[in-house]
């Protein structure tokens, strides 16, 4: 019965994908939305039974691979961690399916879009319910595929195609690490099922093995390799470049895949593997560093972007950084808590942005907005809620989860923990600032839009507003409702065995005893950020321009996203094409063929030509040659006789 939750979206996807033309747009929408809503209801049932009722279980479907020591099943693992993820994925996905009915109404390929959305949901669910590394990898690459298809959904646009390929290939770089990690796990443990690996992990503490010529600690190496995969999927600094470009996809895609679910797969992976990471402290430290650095990096870039979706994309990147440093200080529950609240408010923000874009007839540049409050009150209202939650203003969802993360980082009392705490505080300030920059630039002040566009700007239809309201309710209440379970007193009972924390790493417990100022500081900086944005974009609207002109170098550095794209282009993309071309023309063409077949053929032709010239047709030439031959033969015979 519970297995249905995974397969309902797949069924919807297949029906809409193959029957789309016969069903028509409306039929395809129903064929995907109904199974998705059913899955959402089922996911809530599962959450109550498995997570709150403490009833974990694994449903084995059938044998997948059985070669030598490697035995893998297709299975559905239901424990608190996967139940939380299933709930988040299904609820958000079903809302976005509904929203898409309105948002994509005028598109020419509605069935294809709905089919892709459901297909994505299916892959995401196989990922979170995986019972072994390889099924997780299946879901992992599957969501990558769906993401590729959806980013490139409008295949007529060159930018969309480029972004789609970039997303897939950059993710593959991460998957390169993930795959090596899986190979290493099998090498070290002799199995790829989660439970036996987790049981055997403590035995490998301190053990070394030889990896590409280096003698290294097994667990640290494996955890770092696996983390590379997480960095790719969750857009952490270095492998983040695909996420902002992914905004080429339709907005519901950005909300579902590039904010609420797929990009959090890396966070989920580390949490799922907490029984391994707990014994790899160096890997955890690296995760804290990468997470905290991403949080601040993305927040600084978010300050300067003008595309409404890109601002939110960088904000997502930054929030994922928070989740990662939470994981790094062993506050897994806090990370998943933030993942959950973030899914609600960030999906809300994206869908709100989509509502704005829809109402403005596909305008995304905030410099051409402003004054939209009167045109779209509901959208503005829910965007405020989303931003309040994102900034961590009390008692919205983000407040609960972000605070506990920062407190846990502080309470870790490590150098890296402090690094994360202080960068997290600064990033929180920036978050509040750019969130209200977005709100003010979009909804307030005199409009900068083209009068004709502004004239026709309109509020979205109810089919889009209802999901916004549902998500807004989540953005208000999810933190308050979940706090006790995810990170409060109920947490040990709630998580059961699905998360593992060594007693000495219990930073969530320590976080509850953090000093008052630590608890207050995030709220204070959030309010300061909002006030600063109000000052800069409402009170003195020309101030940002002046600052940008004064600090031109810094401004350009941020506007160009720290020049990562340019760097990678020079470092990898162009050399790869250059090398490929060179190897083809010189390597294959001149060297191998030149010396090999073509060279041999040329030499043969040459020789034949010379031999041909010998046949002069003059009898005395032939006689002469014969005579010489005879002499040579006779002398050789004589010499041989003597010898």
């Amino acid at each position, binding site marked *: 019965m519970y297995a249905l939750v995974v397969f309902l979206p797949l069924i919807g996807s297949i029906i809409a994908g193959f029957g789309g033309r016969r069903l028509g747009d409306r039929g395809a929408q129903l064929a995907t939305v109904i199974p998705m809503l059913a899955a959402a209801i089922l996911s809530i049932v599962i959450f109550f039974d498995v997570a709150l009722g403490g009833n974990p279980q694994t449903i084995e479907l*059938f*044998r*997948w*691979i*059985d*070669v*030598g020591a*490697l035995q893998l099943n297709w299975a559905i693992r239901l424990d608190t961690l996967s139940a939380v993820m299933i709930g988040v994925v299904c609820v958000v996905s079903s809302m976005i399916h509904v929203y898409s009915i309105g948002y994509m109404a005028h598109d020419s390929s509605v069935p294809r879009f709905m089919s892709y959305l459901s297909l994505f949901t299916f892959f995401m669910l196989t990922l979170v319910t995986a019972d072994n590394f*390889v099924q997780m*990898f*299946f879901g992992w*690459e*599957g969501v990558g*595929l769906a993401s*590729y298809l959806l980013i*490139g959904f409008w*295949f*007529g646009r*060159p930018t969309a*195609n480029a972004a*789609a*390929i970039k997303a*897939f*290939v950059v993710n*593959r*770089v991460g*998957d*390169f690490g993930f*795959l*090596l990690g899986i*190979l*290493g796990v*099998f*090498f070290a443990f002799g199995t790829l099922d989660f439970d036996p690996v987790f049981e055997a992990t403590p035995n490998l503490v301190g053990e070394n093995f*030889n*990896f*590409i*010529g280096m003698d290294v600690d097994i667990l640290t190496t494996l955890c770092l390799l696996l983390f590379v995969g997480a960095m790719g999927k969750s857009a952490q600094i270095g492998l983040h470049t695909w996420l902002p470009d992914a905004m080429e996809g339709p907005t519901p895609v950005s909300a579902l895949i590039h904010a609420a679910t797929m990009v959090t797969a890396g966070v989920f992976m580390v949490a799922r593997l907490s029984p391994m990471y707990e014994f790899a402290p160096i890997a955890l430290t690296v995760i804290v560093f990468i997470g905290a650095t991403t949080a601040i990096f993305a927040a600084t870039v978010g300050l300067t972007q003008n595309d409404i979706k890109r601002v939110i994309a960088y904000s997502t990147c930054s929030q994922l950084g928070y989740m990662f440093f939470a994981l790094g200080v062993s506050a897994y529950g806090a990370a998943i808590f933030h993942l959950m609240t973030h899914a609600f408010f960030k999906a809300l923000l994206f869908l709100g942005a989509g509502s704005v874009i829809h109402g403005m007839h596909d305008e995304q540049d905030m410099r051409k907005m402003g004054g939209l409050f009167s045109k779209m009150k509901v959208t503005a209202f829910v965007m405020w809620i989303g931003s309040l939650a994102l900034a961590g203003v009390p008692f919205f969802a983000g407040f609960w989860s972000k605070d506990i993360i920062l407190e846990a980082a502080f309470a870790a009392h490590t150098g890296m923990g402090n690094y994360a705490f202080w960068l997290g505080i600064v990033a929180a300030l920036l978050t509040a600032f750019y969130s209200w920059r977005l709100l003010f630039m979009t909804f307030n002040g005199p409009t900068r839009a083209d009068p004709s566009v502004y004239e026709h700007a309109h509020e979205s239809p109810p089919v889009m507003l209802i999901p916004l309201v549902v998500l807004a309710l989540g953005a208000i209440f999810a933190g308050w409702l979940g706090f006790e379970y995810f990170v409060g007193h109920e947490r040990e009972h709630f998580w059961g065995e699905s998360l593992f924390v060594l007693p000495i790493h219990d930073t969530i417990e320590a976080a509850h005893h953090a000093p008052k100022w630590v608890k207050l500081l995030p709220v204070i900086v959030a309010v300061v950020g909002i006030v600063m944005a109000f000052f800069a974009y409402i009170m003195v609207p020309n101030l940002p321009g002046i600052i940008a002109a004064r600090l031109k170098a810094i401004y350009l550095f941020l506007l160009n996203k720290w020049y990562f794209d340019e760097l990678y282009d020079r470092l990898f993309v162009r050399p*790869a*094409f250059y*090398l*490929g*071309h060179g*190897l*083809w023309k010189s*390597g*294959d063409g001149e060297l*191998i*063929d030149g010396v*090999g*077949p073509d060279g*041999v*053929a040329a030499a043969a032709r040459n020789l034949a030509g010379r031999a041909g010239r010998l046949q002069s047709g003059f009898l005395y030439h032939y006689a002469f040659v014969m005579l010489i031959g005879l002499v040579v033969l006779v002398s050789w015979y004589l010499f041989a006789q003597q010898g």
Partner: protein
Amino acid sequence: MDGFPLLSLTTFLPLVGVAFILMVRGDEDIVARNSRYAALWTSLVTFALSLFIWFNFDHGTSDFQFVEKAAWLPRFDVSYHLGVDGISMLFVLLSTFLTPICVLASWKAVTSRVREYMIAFLVLETMMIGTFVALDFVLFYIFFEGVLIPMFIIIGVWGGPRRVYSAFKFFLYTLAGSVLLLVAILVMYFQADTTDIPTLLVTDIAPHLQPWLWLALLASFAVKLPMWPVHTWLPDAHVEAPTAGSVILAGVLLKMGGYGFLRFSVPMLPLATDQFTPLIYALSIIAIIYTSLVALAQEDMKKLIAYSSVAHMGFVTIGIFSLTDHGIQGAIFQMLSHGIISAALFLCVGVVYDRVHSREIADYGGLVERMPKYAFVFMIFMLGSVGLPGTSGFIGEFLVLLGAFQDNTWVAFLASTGIILGAAYMLYLYRRVIFGKLEKENLKKLLDLEPREVAVMVPLVLLVLWMGIYPMPFLDVFDASVANLIEGYEGALAASQGVSVAGR
């Protein structure tokens, strides 16, 4: 089924079809139509027969099955000896599966000399099946080399503008290898006084001869596979070959190299195999990285897929020479999977080549608007080639890498870069052909797949997914044989070490 000559029947049934085609009389149209139907029915019946082999195959044993033996040249102990084990069985199926597909794919594309074309394909089928079922080295050699003749003719007669250059390049490369193979066979005959393969498998060949024999075999198999740096015939041959020729070339002929390693080099020359493994690793890794980069720069669709084949075959050799159960099973699986996927990709190129008569990537773009079905099947095969989990490509690559990692982490590390590059060149190809705006005038009237083409593609799509989601029916077939192969190999190594220790 005891005593029933199933293998002989499967092997030579295509020749019966040839006889039928030769008997067809009438004007050109009638001959062409009848030849097509005769070839299709013959190949379908052959395929049905080969399914019997699969259904009646005993998974539990590594022995040769369906064995037939008759004296042929008794004075030299050369016999007509056929049989299949887990390693060869699925290759027979691959050959019989792809032939009807090739016949269907050539239905409209080939209009001149149809009779001769169909005859060439049926003869080719006999040669391919014979190669995989032969249990006598001389018999094997005849089939193995016999494959060259119809293929040479197919490229040389029905090929593109540079077909003669390509056909000769193909022929010379492979022939150079064959000469050394023949020498090796003779030497082995003088060692064992027989050319019977099962006997040779249990014969210990003198250690000082092994390296030389091994290198002679390498010369032949490396060209067939092809391995870097003797791969340059492949892109040219593919580019000039007609679609169905490319399908068989990529689908089956390349696998003969890998099969050769598994049947001869590894079990018969274990000491040399051990000694030369680093060489194979190095060549394979170069193949993967080098040809993937070259594929990235290609402007011709067929060349790109040809180069990707070299990279994928690199995984095969790594898997075989990792000499672990995962590696070898992965290598066999990868060969089968690549046989399906690369064949299908060439068919995909053929579909648009038939319509537009160009292989240049730049001549396409935006096909998805006019050809959504085509875009879908091309997508599945592209993903299979990329090795996406859930397709057959993943299982093979994953098992190979799993085996390689156990043997040498450097090899696994470097080979894994292939998954990044593979994604890059395939997605880049797909984007330029399928996506983008449909702007070129001659593309605006293209028609989507017709029912005949759907009938060609659907079985391939289903197989790619089946082998990815539920690969056990395939893996089970070669499980016992691979285990036996490794056991024999390790036994031989241990014995020789024992001897050298004792000698000290």
